[in-house]
């Protein structure tokens, strides 16, 4: 009998230091996944945590992890060759296909860039399928920006708009929250928006984009909840009767607004 609670044992094959508190772990787990899906990462003896997949190939998946909780702090102390467990992939993923032949806006805040990275890479590899593409990315400080070494390549394929809350020496770009960049996006109508970041960032970005006339029916956001089982049984990630692990983590803004328990991420977006 297939047991969805049983993790597959995998190894850490590489570790990339992204920022002082974030590392990307390359895990020897040949999973077929859709951009936006997540896995349950097991550290044996410590437990499990849901982690978005930030990249991968036929041999491995990448997990970009900020050290904030029990599991995530532990994996930061682990080394190449150490063993972890993987269940998944779970969740619906980003509706990338909806953006084909149309404009695409990718809006990320902080660690929220990680689940969007597979989308960006898909766009780079399939650039002709999309019209205008913009990446909007905000971080607290320049030193906390993820995937800086990729930005140059990405900017060959799309408009990359960056901002930080607090500048550091050498930063010549924009200072301010993500919303301060919204009016620099060159395409508005017929744009599919994919958004991930802290609740407050998603909320105000949604409001700004709506005011600028971006179609709300085509705005999608990825919610973060306490997904324990990943398969819609344990109940922890439920929001308004939907399971973020199974029905999400990606929801359209319109659907999220209709939920009975309005998620924090969209509270106050329409009142």
């Amino acid at each position: 009998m297939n047991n969805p609670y049983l993790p597959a044992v995998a190894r850490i094959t590489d570790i990339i230091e992204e920022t002082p508190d974030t590392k990307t772990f390359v895990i020897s787990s040949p999973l077929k996944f859709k951009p936006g899906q997540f896995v349950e990462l097991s550290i044996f003896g410590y437990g499990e945590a849901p982690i978005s997949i930030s990249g991968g190939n036929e041999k491995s998946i990448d997990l970009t992890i900020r050290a904030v909780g029990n599991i995530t702090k532990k994996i930061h102390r682990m080394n190449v060759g150490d063993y972890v467990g993987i269940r998944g992939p779970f969740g619906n993923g980003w509706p990338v296909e909806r953006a084909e032949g149309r404009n695409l806006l990718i809006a990320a805040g902080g660690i929220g860039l990680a689940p969007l990275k597979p989308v960006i890479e898909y766009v780079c590899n399939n650039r002709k399928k999309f019209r205008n593409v913009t990446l909007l990315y905000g971080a607290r400080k320049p030193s906390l920006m993820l995937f800086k070494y990729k930005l140059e390549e990405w900017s060959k394929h799309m408009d990359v708009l960056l901002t930080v809350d607090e500048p550091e020496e050498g930063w010549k770009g924009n200072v301010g929250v993500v919303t301060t960049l919204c009016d620099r996006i060159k395409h508005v109508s017929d744009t599919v928006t994919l958004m991930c970041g802290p609740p407050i960032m998603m909320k105000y970005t949604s409001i700004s984009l709506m005011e600028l006339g971006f179609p709300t029916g085509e705005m999608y956001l990825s919610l973060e909840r306490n997904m324990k089982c990943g398969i819609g049984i344990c109940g922890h990630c439920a929001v308004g009767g939907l399971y973020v692990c199974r029905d999400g983590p990606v929801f359209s803004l319109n659907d999220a607004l209709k939920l009975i328990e309005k998620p924090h991420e969209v509270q106050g977006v329409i009142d």
Partner: protein
Amino acid sequence: MGVKIAKNRVNEFLKYLKEEYILYAPVEENGVSKISKIEDTSDIINLPYRTQISLKPIFFPPEQKFFRFEKKNGGVEIEDYLPQEGDDKSIIFGVRGCDVNAIEVLDKYMLDEFEDPYYRKRRENAIIIGISCDYPKESCFCTAFGGMVPERYDLWFTDIGPHFYVDIGSKRGEKLIDDKFFEEASEEDEMRKIRRINSVETKINRKVKTNLHDIKKYYHKIKNRADDSIWEELGRKCVSCGKCNFICPTCHCFDVKDMTNIDGSAGERIRVWDSCHLYDYAKTSAENFREERKARVRYRIYDKFVFPVMRYGVYACTGCGRCSEVCPAGIDIHAVVRRLIK
């Protein structure tokens, strides 16, 4: 036409079943009535109504081990406990309608697109022999949902005097009907059974006076009260003890954790029942999405009368009244629902 069994033959019938099946039936342990594995049929108690503990722990125990792991030879070895889960055939005797309906609800959650294999193994070989209640408990309100005889069962017993009338609900049930114990029931017996069930249901109804049969209508009504002041009021009363969740035959939330030996080299992953009333329930490393108690109280009521209707088209409440019975703050789910549909 159904069959009947003389009351004084029931014990023999159960002994006969016990030869081939693992038998579960109502017993009392430490002053608490529940349905447990029977070693000796004389331990079975005769209750006129449901047990204090539902069927849930039989299929979904409060604590369940998923697997064992051991760090060995530079790797990790995993031993799945699933194969150890017995798939023996079992018979659960003396179950009430509310509990049978509740198990059907639990099936929807556990055996949906993703299956819970630990639950499935225990559930799929279980034969249900139910029985009509003689009279209701104080907190019972099953008639609000349609009455005390469920739609699906294997056999269903109803007291008709010196005999139990036995309805056959499935092929599996039919196979249990042995001439040694059962005899053909007459039309009169059947009428007696119907009269009996009606009279008990009337008794319950007289007290309950709530009818939630029109699911769509009441689901909408309750859904529209999301911002009502009732949640504030209940939030002040509720002490978040979680008793309603644990006792509920359809509550299925669980937490998953790793227990290890002292140096972490070996351990087990277990699941433990969890409660949506608890502060930590919807907490992530960044935020607590149901920090306010009133939001947690509302969530549970909605997860009985609104959310399962959206997902599966059924209520996740069957009117057993256990949560009202155990709530130290006196929150009565039936009274709450009555206020919500007013």
